[in-house]
């Protein structure tokens, strides 16, 4: 009950702040239409070359890249929202006030991130809707259950990483840029823009250790080719392992980071 009330308060607060910037949603939608149009024409160009590596994903580069880009938005939110909220709280002075209230640590973390996920879901849905309606994005064969499982496990996995970065920000105050560069590189290596099969063998081996590799592959196969849960069980198993690992680590690390910041007296410092 406490969690729901707190979560709703955070959602309302963030919604009101977003609404106060009147043109943000409109501008983001226009940008989405523009970017999806660019991807559509790039897709047409790439498809003329008839690359064999795209056959596994239905043969269309447009579908391949749109699904990749859509999920990368969730990946970005998972990574950025936790440390971003903490940094905002430090900058405005609200973090100490919130942490001096009887709000439990993980209730605060979860609630403060909710709106970002809701907003991204709306935005990505719109993105895919525009892609389907105006640019012939083919998602008719989607296996919703398999896609949802891959999606949820991936979100859990990246929420864990996001909380770990937030812990890092609390303790060392800096370092999020280096982590973001590393994660950006991992996006490329794991097949955001082109399939992992195109990478040199060494990088392909590295890609096997990146959860995003399984996310992109699993989502593309379930959405574009309709692969079932059974067909994707390998990817699901790996993502499940990553999710358990990162969530467990984050649950241990974050309270430790808050305690360390309280010992140093640096909770509000940035």
């Amino acid at each position, binding site marked *: 009950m406490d969690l729901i009330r707190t979560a709703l*308060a955070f959602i309302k*607060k963030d919604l*009101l702040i977003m609404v106060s910037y009147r043109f943000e949603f409109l501008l983001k939608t226009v940008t989405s239409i523009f970017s999806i149009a660019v991807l559509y024409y790039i897709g047409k160009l790439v498809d003329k070359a008839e690359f064999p590596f795209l056959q596994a994903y239905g043969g269309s580069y447009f579908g391949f890249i749109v699904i990749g880009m859509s999920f990368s938005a969730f990946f970005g939110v998972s990574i950025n929202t936790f440390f971003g909220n903490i940094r905002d709280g430090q900058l405005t002075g609200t973090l100490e006030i919130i*942490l001096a209230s*009887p709000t*439990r640590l993980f209730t605060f973390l979860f609630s403060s991130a909710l709106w970002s996920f809701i907003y991204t879901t709306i935005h990505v849905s719109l993105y895919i809707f525009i892609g389907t309606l105006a640019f012939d994005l083919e998602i008719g064969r989607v296996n919703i259950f398999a896609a949802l499982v891959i999606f949820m496990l991936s979100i859990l996995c990246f929420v864990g990483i996001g909380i770990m970065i937030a812990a890092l920000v609390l303790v060392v105050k800096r370092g999020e840029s280096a982590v973001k560069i590393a994660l950006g590189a991992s996006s490329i290596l794991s097949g955001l823009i082109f399939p992992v099969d195109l990478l040199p063998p060494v990088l392909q081996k590295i890609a096997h250790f990146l959860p995003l590799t399984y996310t992109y592959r699993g989502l593309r196969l379930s959405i574009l080719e309709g692969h079932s849960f059974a067909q994707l069980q390998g990817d699901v198993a790996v993502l499940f392992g990553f999710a358990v690992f990162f969530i467990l680590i984050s649950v241990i690390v974050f309270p430790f980071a808050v305690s360390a910041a*309280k*010992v140093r007296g640096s909770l509000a410092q940035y």
Partner: protein
Amino acid sequence: MTNVIEVRNLKKIFKLHTSLKNLILGRKKIVTALDNLSLDIREGEIFGLLGPNGAGKTTLIKMLTTLILPTGGSATLCGYDIVRDQWHVKNSIGLIHSDERSFFWRLTARQNLEFFAALYQLPGEVSRNRIDELLTLVGLEEHANTWFQNFSTGMKQRLAIARGLLSMPKVLFMDEPMRSIDPVSTQKIRQFIRNKALEHIKGAIIIATNRLDEAISLCDRVAIFNKGQMIKSGTIHDINLAAKEYIQYELKVKNISAEVIDSICRMPWVLNCENKSRGNGNTDLVLDLTSEEESLHLALKEIIRSNGYIQKCIRKEPSFEDTFIDLIKEFETSRSKNGPH
């Protein structure tokens, strides 16, 4: 009267890296922000934490509000341990930050308070009524639907007070609540704290400040801090009285020779003596005398005996400001002689 806060040998040591070189070499500077503090704060009182910048006032508030963990010692707030029972402690306190920016700037005053009320799990109806009541109480009812970013500094601070009272806390902490506020707003807020805030607080109000006028006008008792140590605590009257080691008299006398002045100044009960000629045989004398009753009598007798004429004799009560400065200086001197603990 029961104690709302009990602090026993509370200690906070910070280990700081002072330069990049020290960071690389792993060297840390040890700073004792609070040194073995023991203190009781009673129910129903406004208690002042006084001291210059860096005295340890904010560190103490942050420890009592669970935002900083102590290095040693213990403290309880309403019977709850500040380390072990953090959730109960948080449920018992309100915090008014020195940083008046600590709101969401693109939300209105009401929306901000609604958000913070939800963190204290106040039910909708209770929350709405209390927000209305508090906005009226701090004089912001007409600005309830104004964006926080359009508030003046005084209005922001008043909203912070309303937020601090939202949960009807047992203990309200105010860290430099009047910092950067104009004198008119300061007076209003002080009146509010003195007359109305305590009605809403079931326990105590703790105010950290380096403004002595604030402590004099608001606090029932104060504790004076410097460099992490508590120098004195008690009522302002008691501290003033206890600190007085001499009584100062200001005399305006006529027809008094340098020899007589010299003999008065050398009397054993005269601790300090200053004189200034005003011309035409007029002299101003400032005498710091031991508190023995005889001392003034004997000094005056000496003036009269030499045919001097006493125009004025005023006993100067030391102000709390004088006492405060003396205490700080005394502490600094003893610290430089004996070194920090």
